[in-house]
């Protein structure tokens, strides 16, 4: 009976996985010409690859010429051998070239009025362990090619973008007590929001409301903190682990709780207070992110906690109750939706190596970049 149940669950999951969305029936065909150093050319090709919105064909009558020199990138749109548009991208530092490339591809995508590709120009903020009890916060492009350390000294963890324009971040500093700060990456202004014993993490941001995980009495619970009124409201009260709160729709949160013995993803309605389990599949659901009514969850499927096929990513649509498997093997964690919900960034551990993965949901494609060091957490 148990085997039959597993089989049925398996059929259900794989059936969902094989539904491939025909997202772009006719991709624009363009020719690409690149005159740039190897690393810049590589990144241009990588962006086209990840975006997957174009068919690259040198014989096309529409060509795009990329010329990188100094700290400038010149992009010429050519139709029938005649330049029709020239765009210049400049920076004051040679290290900024990834942002110039991403912006150029983003603009080209917009020129053809294709599905928005905002993920290309989003910055990534991440915390990385530099030594035991030493963690710094870095700023990077979505491929982590660009890297700049912005917060250092002690344990600086859980960075989270504080605004849509990606000017400011929240992060936790572990001093004697955990302290929550807001940091302006352009001006360097550092503002202390609060401190609390035990645990203090910003899990999600929605306007002036922050979903915090705090553990005032040694029990991690989820709170909503309003930045304007400074009001703090406790949302979960289970005497165990309640973490990773994410705003879900207009009147609910999704969160991870061990109230069933192992960590699982639950939904709590903020009006009625009702709590329901969101995903029955898997034995250990620890990673979670939400985009509108969609959830991406990292779930362990095997009994063997340390086996090779450990944590896989699943996409759930709350409205349609659809379930879609996103990864097949390895330890896939830290799922993080892109700003427009069309991509998921995550960390994959496999064969003793870590890599950052990007799943293009509409294109059914996954791309990986190697990671040299272990990330503590990141926000895209």
């Amino acid at each position: 009976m148990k085997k039959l149940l597993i089989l049925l669950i398996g059929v259900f999951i794989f059936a969902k996985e094989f539904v491939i969305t025909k997202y772009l029936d006719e991709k624009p065909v363009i020719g690409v010409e690149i005159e740039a150093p190897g690393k810049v050319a590589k990144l241009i090709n990588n962006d086209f690859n990840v975006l997957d919105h174009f068919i690259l064909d040198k014989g096309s009558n529409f060509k795009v010429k990329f010329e990188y020199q100094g700290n400038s990138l010149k992009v010429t749109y050519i139709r029938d051998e005649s330049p029709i548009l020239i765009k210049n991208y400049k920076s004051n530092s040679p290290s900024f070239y990834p942002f110039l490339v991403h912006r150029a591809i983003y603009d080209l995508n917009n020129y053809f009025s294709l599905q928005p590709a905002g993920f290309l120009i989003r910055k990534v903020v991440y915390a990385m362990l530099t030594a035991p009890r030493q963690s710094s916060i870095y700023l990077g492009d979505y491929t982590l090619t660009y890297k700049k350390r912005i917060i250092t000294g002690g344990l600086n963890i859980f960075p989270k973008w504080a605004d849509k324009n990606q000017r400011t971040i929240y992060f936790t500093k572990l001093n004697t007590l955990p302290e929550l700060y807001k940091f302006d990456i352009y001006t360097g202004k550092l503002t202390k929001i609060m401190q609390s014993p035990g645990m203090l993490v910003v899990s999600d941001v929605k306007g002036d409301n922050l979903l915090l995980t705090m553990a005032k009495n040694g029990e991690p619970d989820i709170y909503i903190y309003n930045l304007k009124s400074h009001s703090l409201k406790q949302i979960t009260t289970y005497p165990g682990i309640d973490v990773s709160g994410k705003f879900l729709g207009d009147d609910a949160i999704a969160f991870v709780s061990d109230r069933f013995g192992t960590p699982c993803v639950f939904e709590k309605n903020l009006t009625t207070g009702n709590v329901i389990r969101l995903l029955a599949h898997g034995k250990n659901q620890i990673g979670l992110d939400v985009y509108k009514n969609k959830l991406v969850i990292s779930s362990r499927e095997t009994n063997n906690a340390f086996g090779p096929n450990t944590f896989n990513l699943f996409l759930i649509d709350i409205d349609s109750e659809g379930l879609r498997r996103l990864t097949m093997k390895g330890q896939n964690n830290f799922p993080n939706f892109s700003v427009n919900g069309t991509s998921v960034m995550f960390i994959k551990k496999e064969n003793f190596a870590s890599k950052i993965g990007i799943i293009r949901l509409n294109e059914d494609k996954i791309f990986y970049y190697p990671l040299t060091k272990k990330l503590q957490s990141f926000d895209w």
Partner: protein
Amino acid sequence: MIKKLGLISGVAAVLLMLGCSNKQPNLENAQLETNQTQQKVVQNEQNKPTQTQKSEVNEKVQQEKIKLAQNIKQKQENEKQFAQNVADIVVYFDFDKYNIRQDQWPKVQKLADLIKSHPGKYTIRIEGNCDEWGTEEYNYGLGIRRANSVKNALIKLGVDPNQLTIISYGELNPVCTAHAKWCWAKNRRDNFTYLP
């Protein structure tokens, strides 16, 4: 009238002279005063410590200073030893669990005895740690619960709650970085730090 005045003045002059004569030094008085002075000097000499007495006092002061320093050093040594004894205790946990394992209870009991036998104004920080499995926030929460489990146990064993504080390092404070089960088991632990 003039005669009377002259008589009074005369008597006053004689009395004045007599009064002054008492304070005039004579041989006997001088001898007496000298003796008194000598006695005073002798007395002062007697009060004044001799060179030997001086060195004895210095030695005593020195000894007291040494004793004080030794006491301080001993106290520091005791504190150091206490901190080390506290740090030597490590409570391990099972994968994804925060309940104290049966085999780890003696360590908690030992820690409680240590704290109770060492009175003073200090805090013990209980630091929850996790292995590399799991996501950042859940591991951080798990670390807090592991720290809280031992805190609650210590309180039940009679330790003053005001002496205990908890923190979670999640997976950020590994003692072992190999990708192996035995290594991950070492990282699922509570450490204890003495904060004077």
